[in-house]
């Protein structure tokens, strides 16, 4: 029930529209239920044109009957027909607006669910994004949203329609003859029960069939992806057998569904037409007894349809409901996750670039082990600090904390203000971080660079690209800065992506920049060029560089050595090479590579 209420919250802001749709939906079968009355009138009139038809005989408004009775013969038929056409135009308008409003309502709901999901996902904390399964999440955002939308805008009105149609049909038939009405209702429970059973069964079978199809598709996918292996091992016959096996399984399960479908519809049409037969035959006996007229029987035959057809849809609506509940739960699971802004600071202080860490520790909620332990250090505005250490030492954790991707224990001050008191977005606007594996948006190079500031002129873009050593690569693309990159465009190399990310961050002129191993895919020479260009550019820039290259680290004002979440050393290159420890070891490996190489070659040549 609580799930159902959650479902209803999407409807709330459209209550007026929903009311109109409900009214129009009810009116659709009700207006239809008067059409047979016109035909009945015609028949009664033709059969007995001399006696006027009065209100009790026919269920049409008295003003219409008055109008009709003013005419006789052919003119009366004309007038009756025209009245029917006008009435149907009116009914057509109701049907049209019903469809139109349902469309508007349905699309608005879909839009609301989609946009709130998208915005919410954007705001979920980094730790959530680290763990998620993209495929599953997209499925929830697409097909589950479709299920919810379909239920709210198709199945719910349909339920109303079924009820209205049944009631209108029963009412009109009861006016003609209660006994015939009761006879016509005989098959309604049968149709209802069989359709509920059928749709339950078929949903179960559909799941099995979908699983079989998925298996078949994965065999196919494996074969397309691994075609080199198949060919190199001459395993084509084996591949064909495997695929055929899965293909046949899928075919079998589809056929099973189909047989159920054939049985259900065969049976249900048997019942439905049987209902017509029963109604006609009973009417014939009634006519023999002189109880009902020709007009009555013709109208009755038209009403049978209002009772027997809609009831079959009821089973389907009931089947869909369980699907909708599952979909709603899946969507609400995402929306129920607290965003990272549930716990945000309020301050927006001026940032110049002084950073201090005091006893900062960090661990994930679901692990015991601390990734950072009592980290203490200080960076002054304009300084460059390098962080070195092994994979998993906690280097990235430090900078992720600094841009508020993670919460922390202890105290971090940004220009004297406690970091957690500052608005997260404000922190990120002032502290730029360039990731090792940056995401490139599916846009042109130009759009990607100025994504943070679309008003930027070309000159500034080129300049940033030049500093990031990207410009020369880009001008060699066939379409230059207008080259589409990302999934549907040119695939950039790892180094190009990193340089693009640097250019993209540079144009934003943030006072603090963090390079999270973001030159790892760039060769040593380009690395040096970029750092030199950066130095020439900004004097006030505070930068933190995470790197594995000692040649990069040694130019920093300060080098921090991180081991197992603790700072084991901090100082300048000259200071650190003299002390025993990790830095010295690294320097001994990387410090004289050229000489070492020459030694190796001379040994190997011998």
């Amino acid at each position: 029930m609580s799930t159902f209420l959650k479902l209803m919250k999407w409807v709330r802001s459209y209550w007026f529209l929903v009311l109109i749709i409900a009214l129009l939906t009810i009116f659709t079968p009700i207006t239809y239920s008067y059409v047979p009355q016109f035909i009945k009138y015609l028949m009664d009139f033709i059969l007995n044109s001399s006696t006027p038809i009065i209100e009790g005989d026919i269920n049409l408004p008295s003003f219409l009957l008055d109008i009709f009775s003013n005419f006789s013969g052919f003119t009366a038929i004309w007038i009756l027909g025209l009245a029917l056409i006008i009435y149907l135009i009116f009914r057509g308008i109701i049907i049209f607006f019903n469809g139109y409003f349902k469309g508007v309502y349905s699309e608005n709901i879909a839009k609301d669910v989609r946009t709130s999901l998208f915005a919410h996902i954007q705001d979920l904390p980094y730790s959530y994004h680290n763990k998620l399964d993209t495929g599953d999440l997209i499925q929830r955002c697409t097909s589950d949203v479709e299920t919810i939308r379909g239920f709210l805008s198709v199945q719910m009105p349909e339920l109303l329609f079924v009820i209205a149609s049944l009631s209108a049909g029963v009412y009109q038939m009861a006016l003609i003859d209660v006994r015939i009405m009761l006879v016509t209702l005989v098959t309604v429970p049968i149709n209802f029960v069989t359709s509920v059973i059928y749709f339950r069964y078929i949903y179960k079978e559909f799941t099995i069939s979908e699983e079989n199809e998925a298996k078949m598709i994965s065999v196919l996918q494996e074969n397309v992806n691994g075609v080199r292996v198949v060919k190199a091992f001459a395993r084509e016959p084996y591949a064909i057998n495997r695929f055929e096996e899965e293909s046949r399984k899928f075919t079998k399960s589809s056929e099973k569904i189909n047989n159920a479908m054939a049985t259900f519809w065969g049976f249900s049409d048997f019942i439905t037409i049987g209902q017509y037969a029963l109604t006609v035959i009973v009417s014939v006996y009634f006519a023999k007894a002189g109880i009902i007229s020709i007009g009555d029987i013709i109208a009755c035959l038209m009403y049978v349809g209002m009772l027997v057809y809609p009831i079959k849809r009821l089973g389907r609506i009931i089947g869909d409901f369980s699907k909708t509940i599952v979909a709603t739960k899946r969507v609400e699971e995402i929306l129920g996750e607290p965003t990272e802004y549930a716990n945000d600071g309020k301050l927006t202080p001026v940032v110049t670039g002084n950073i201090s860490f005091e006893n900062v520790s960090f661990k994930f909620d679901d692990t015991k082990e601390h990734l950072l332990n009592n980290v203490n250090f200080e960076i002054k505005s304009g300084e460059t600090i390098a962080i070195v250490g092994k994979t998993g030492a906690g280097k990235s954790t430090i900078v992720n904390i600094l841009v508020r991707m993670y919460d922390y224990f202890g105290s971090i001050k940004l220009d004297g203000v406690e970091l957690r008191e500052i608005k997260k977005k404000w922190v990120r606007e002032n502290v730029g971080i360039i990731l090792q594996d940056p995401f490139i948006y599916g846009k042109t190079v130009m759009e990607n660079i100025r994504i943070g500031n679309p008003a930027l002129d070309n000159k500034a873009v080129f300049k940033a690209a030049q500093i990031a050593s990207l410009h020369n690569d880009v001008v060699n693309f066939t379409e230059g800065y207008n080259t589409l990159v990302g999934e549907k465009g040119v695939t950039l190399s790892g180094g190009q992506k990193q340089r693009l990310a640097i250019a993209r961050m540079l144009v934003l002129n943030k006072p603090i920049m963090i390079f999270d191993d973001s030159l790892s895919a760039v060769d040593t020479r380009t690395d040096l060029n970029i750092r030199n260009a950066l130095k020439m550019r900004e004097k006030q820039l505070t930068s933190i560089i995470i790197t594995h290259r000692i040649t990069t680290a040694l130019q920093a004002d300060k080098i921090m050595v991180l081991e197992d979440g603790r700072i084991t050393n901090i100082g300048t290159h000259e200071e650190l090479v003299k002390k025993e420890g990790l830095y010295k070891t690294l320097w001994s490996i990387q410090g004289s590579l050229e000489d070492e190489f020459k030694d190796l070659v001379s040994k190997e040549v011998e």
Partner: protein
Amino acid sequence: MNQFEEQDYSNSKIDAKIWKKIFKLVLKNKKHVAVLVTAVICLAFLDVMYPLLNSYSISTFFENQEYEKIPLFILAYSLVVIGYGVTVFTFIKMAGKVEVEVAYELRKEAFLKLQNLPFSYYDKTPAGWIMARLTSDSRKLSNILSWGLVDMLWGFATMSGIMIILILTNIRLALINLALTPVIFVIGLYFRKTILKAYRKVRKINSKITASYSEGISGSKTTKTLVLEDKTNTDFSNLCNEMKTNAIKAVIRSSVLFPILMVVSYVGVLFIMRLGGGMVLNGDLSLGVLYLFIICTIQFFDPVMHVSTMIAELQQAQASAERIMSLIETPLDIYDEADIENKYGTILHPKKENWERLNGEIEFENVSFKYEKGETILKDFNLKIKKGMNVALVGETGSGKSTIINLISRFYEPTTGIIKIDGIDYKARSISWLHANLGYVLQNPFLFNGTIMENIRYGKLDATEEEILEISKEVGVDDFVQTFDIKYNTIVGEGGSKLSVGQRQLICFARALISNPKILILDEATSSIDTKTELSIQKIIEKITKDRTCLMVAHRLSTVVNADLILVIKKGEIVEKGSHSDLLKMQGEYYELYRNQFITNKLELSKNI
């Protein structure tokens, strides 16, 4: 425009050739089709019968009070009721049968073709394109071919049935229906087409929305770091609004169709009322017949609509058909000549008894190679590799070293010149013969989802467990397999995702070696593993390259140090040639490559000391 982009076929003409091919496919199982057609015609007959019976009852019992005909009437009606049950059952069963059979055949033919297509096809065809042909297109096509065409047939049959009955009953009244038919048909067709077009646009935007979700999710950290949440939200919101506007446009079109058709058919009813009513008043017509005409006119637009809907959808079906057919009819670039097939057998039915032993001598004679439209990759390339020799190819990406490997493996064939295996042009033997004697290890260690045992057995389908264990121990698979709970029955996951890259690569070695191939090809087999694993693999490589001809393309130079011959390839030519120490002495290309490699390795190493 890229030929693999999904084209808009909305304006294409009906192509008789395509449809001929399609019908051939449908008619593969003539019995089912015959039963289906019969059922559909029976159904149309019944659809005409039951208003006729109702009308008969009105005339006979209500107007003329001929109650003695009641038993006969009940009998007839009972037959119709039973008939409905039986025909609807048969019709759905058969239509479904034809549908799944056609889909099955389409997939089978396409997959068979895929197995025969040469490697170059996969190089230029996106995997997604191939997948879509075997899944959504075959589904769409088989659906339309069964239900769609049957719907159309039913529509035509019912339409004609009703028309015939009406004409036979009263030709003057029937003229009204006759006049109404084209009107309903044209309206239906026009709206169906615009509705389809509108929804096609909606679907396009929908796929953009899905792409946005995917971008929003995978780019979320970057978006956070750039504080772009507001911008991406606005972009997404705009896309959703665009979707909304277009979807509502489509909804308007489809909502207006039914009311229009309803009014149009009741205009027909109006004329029938007037004309028929007059006839009844004059005693020229019975009320039962008037009822028949009114009911038939009201229900008439149903079959007409079915026909027009189908015609509108045929274009889509044709688009699907064209795409599948283009796959099934792709010409083969690389194939065995008929006489070779006679002697050595086909890919599916090899005649292994006629296969010669392969020794492993390879020779390139003036080989040139270029891609279909592309630039020349190799030109007058000559190379002789003696049996048992161990040759390494090094060079930058795009230098042509992979092409040489692909040519030897006959994934591609030389544009000019010949490649000899054991002194004979390799085209004189079958492709399967070569592949069966080839061991091949790829850059990306690709495993099939299944157990480790099954994956190794892939290299030799009749391998015994002992053989598998033996080879696994030799290449180091056994070491890590023993640490798993269920040993060789461990499932490797899709593409091998549950194992580390290094473990996967070792399994690939085992798979390649279990058949004891005479030629072993290592295509950048060590480039996707880390430095630490590389060292152990290097030892294994030394072991396994003995006693067979071995070609390796290497990115990591540590693996080539011990090769008998190293070829440095640049722009399709051999620029340096010799042993490791020879090449270092030259201080040329190889020296530079080796130096860069050395530095990268050292950096890599210092990450994990």
